[in-house]
């Protein structure tokens, strides 16, 4: 085991996969500038700075993927994906189906998102749910360095197009990552959630930066003798439904926490999952603690206020255990932020 940041872990994954498979290439605005070691080792054909044009980057990736290459494209910040939407949603996501299975689109699109840099809503917008809703795509969003590496490796090997969202706030946090060359052990399969902390009283489901929020809440709850189980989804599509259902069947209580806004978000999907497939086991209302239905502000105070906090999770959990209550869609609505 060695310590590295999530960013380093992504870099390691890229390096390992480029080493393993000569069809893997990296395209994007500045990828060659920022990864000159990869240019050195794999050549400028395989690590290419592109023109500043997300639509053609993504379209080129779709065309190349269907023709035998395995492109990884760096689209920088998630809101810029709006320019790449046709290529991702209409081409990569649909043309396998529309061609009756003739083509595959093994590509990975990287994008950063989330609060932490005070850059405002045109850089910070958690729109992963849009891609979960679109058919044919896979979506991952890790919370710790080992998963940044393992999921990126798995994404590169996956025969489907994968959106890989990197939470900005996590990029420079360190964590343990297994050493040694790639022998498959370091892959994190798409579609497998991780139980970050076992518990029996309430299930906290989350992903990306709010996994830490949930772990902190679980710690605080433990002091009140409430055993919270914390699930890190990691993959948003495919979603590890069994992991969620199993936990909810055990605890009977569900709180879903994420930074993205609530309406038609991941928390809606998880809440719906519980209400449709584990209803009999539910002993209290489901709670969603999410970002508000608002763009992210640049101002540090507001940016932070839009992220659900451990105190809010704790309060919601305690309330649930006291006997259920009507709870809000977003962290804002019920003034949970005041905590």
């Amino acid at each position, binding site marked *: 085991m060695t310590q590295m940041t999530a960013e380093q872990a992504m870099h390691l994954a890229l390096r390992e996969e480029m080493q393993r498979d000569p*069809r893997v*290439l990296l395209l994007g605005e500045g990828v060659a500038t920022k990864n000159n070691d990869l240019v050195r080792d794999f050549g400028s*054909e395989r690590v*290419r700075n*592109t*023109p500043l*044009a997300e*639509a*053609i980057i*993504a*379209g*080129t*990736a*779709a*065309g*190349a*993927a*269907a*023709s*035998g*290459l395995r*492109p990884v494209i760096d689209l920088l910040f998630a809101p810029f994906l709006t320019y790449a939407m*046709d*290529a991702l949603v*209409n*081409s990569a996501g649909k*043309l*396998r*189906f*529309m*061609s*009756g*299975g*003739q*083509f*595959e689109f*093994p590509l990975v699109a990287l994008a950063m998102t989330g609060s932490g840099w005070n850059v405002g809503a045109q850089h910070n917008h958690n729109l992963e749910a849009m891609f979960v809703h679109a*058919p*044919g795509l*896979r979506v991952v969003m890790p919370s710790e360095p080992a998963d940044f590496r393992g999921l990126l490796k798995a994404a590169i090997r996956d*025969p*489907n197009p994968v959106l890989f969202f990197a939470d900005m706030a996590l990029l420079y946090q360190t964590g343990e990552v297994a050493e040694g060359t790639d022998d498959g052990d370091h892959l994190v399969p798409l579609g497998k959630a991780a139980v970050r902390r076992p518990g029996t009283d309430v299930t906290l489901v989350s992903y990306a930066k709010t996994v830490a929020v949930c772990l902190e809440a679980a710690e605080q709850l433990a002091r009140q003798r409430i055993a919270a189980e914390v699930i890190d989804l990691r993959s948003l599509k495919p979603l590890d439904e069994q992991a969620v259902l199993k936990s909810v069947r055990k605890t009977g209580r569900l709180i879903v926490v994420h930074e993205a806004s609530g309406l038609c978000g991941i928390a809606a999907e998880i809440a719906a999952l519980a209400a449709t497939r584990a209803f009999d086991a539910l002993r209290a209302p489901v709670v969603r603690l999410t970002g508000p239905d608002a763009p992210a502000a640049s101002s540090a105070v507001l940016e932070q206020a839009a992220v659900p906090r451990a105190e809010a999770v704790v309060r919601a959990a305690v309330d649930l255990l006291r006997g259920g209550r009507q709870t809000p869609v977003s962290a804002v609505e019920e003034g949970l932020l005041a905590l």
Partner: protein
Amino acid sequence: MKDLQSPIETDTGTSARLQRLETMLLIRAYEEQLVTLQQQGAAGGTCTSVGQEACATGVVAALDQRDRILTNHRSGGHLLARGADPGRMMAEVLGRIDGYCAGRSGSLHISDRELGVVLTSTIVGGELSMAPGVALAQKMGQGQPGGIVAVFFGDGAASEGIFHEALNLAVHWRLPLLFVCENNQWQAFVHRLETMADDAIASWARGHGLPVQSVDGNDVDAVYAAARDAVQAIRADGQPRFLELQTYRRRGHYEPDDQFYVDATELETWAQRDPIQGQIDRLRQQGLLDEAGLTAMQQRVRERIDAALTFAQDSPWPTTETLTDFVYA
């Protein structure tokens, strides 16, 4: 696909020219059959290329089997010129399992990997967005050695920003890509002069610094010659070329379309320049085609279309259990 390097048609000699006439007749007959089916209520609408047959025929004839093609919603001609089976195409239009895309595509996005007609998209500009990637893969050794990529699109597609992005990338990355703009003067229900300058397409393309040629798209010999030169040049230096084919969309945008918005004089002028009749006249004048030869040709075409229709109509519907097949690999 035995001999990848041999062009599907090799020359400008008589037999090749007669073959191209027959291809044009086949395209016309195929699309007219689809119009009839639509009118009978037996099929949904399609985008026909009536009046544009020389574009598809001339360009595709200049390509080798090792080359790849991307096309769009108006693809019937490109597919047939490439040798696609009209029966499987019609089955696809009718939504049957023997269609090239197992009924998932319908008329608008037919592709066939085997034939090298890949990634057909009906999103205007979709083909342009993916073409550089196909050409990049070719350049990086994923295609057949020496192959190039041709992308067909309309004058309307040239208005989408992706046109500009694709050209810049192809030029800057030196991709073996032939841009073929079929300028048929219409963008669905809008005449192109309503949205762009007269010389816009060539002039936008020239801004990117690649060789651009404008050709009479209703003269199959001219199209073939220009395409052949462009293809040779791309094969020689690996860099992109641009062809603008001046032509006209003679039927409506999508069946049915009564074309109330079309200037009758303009339509008539172009009808006088029918690419098929023009080629028949030329071949006759040159003494290369007689009445009997033409009748035989038309007869062969009719038989193929009849057989195609029977095949398509006999093909089963997909079953609903297969509804989610092909989504994920």
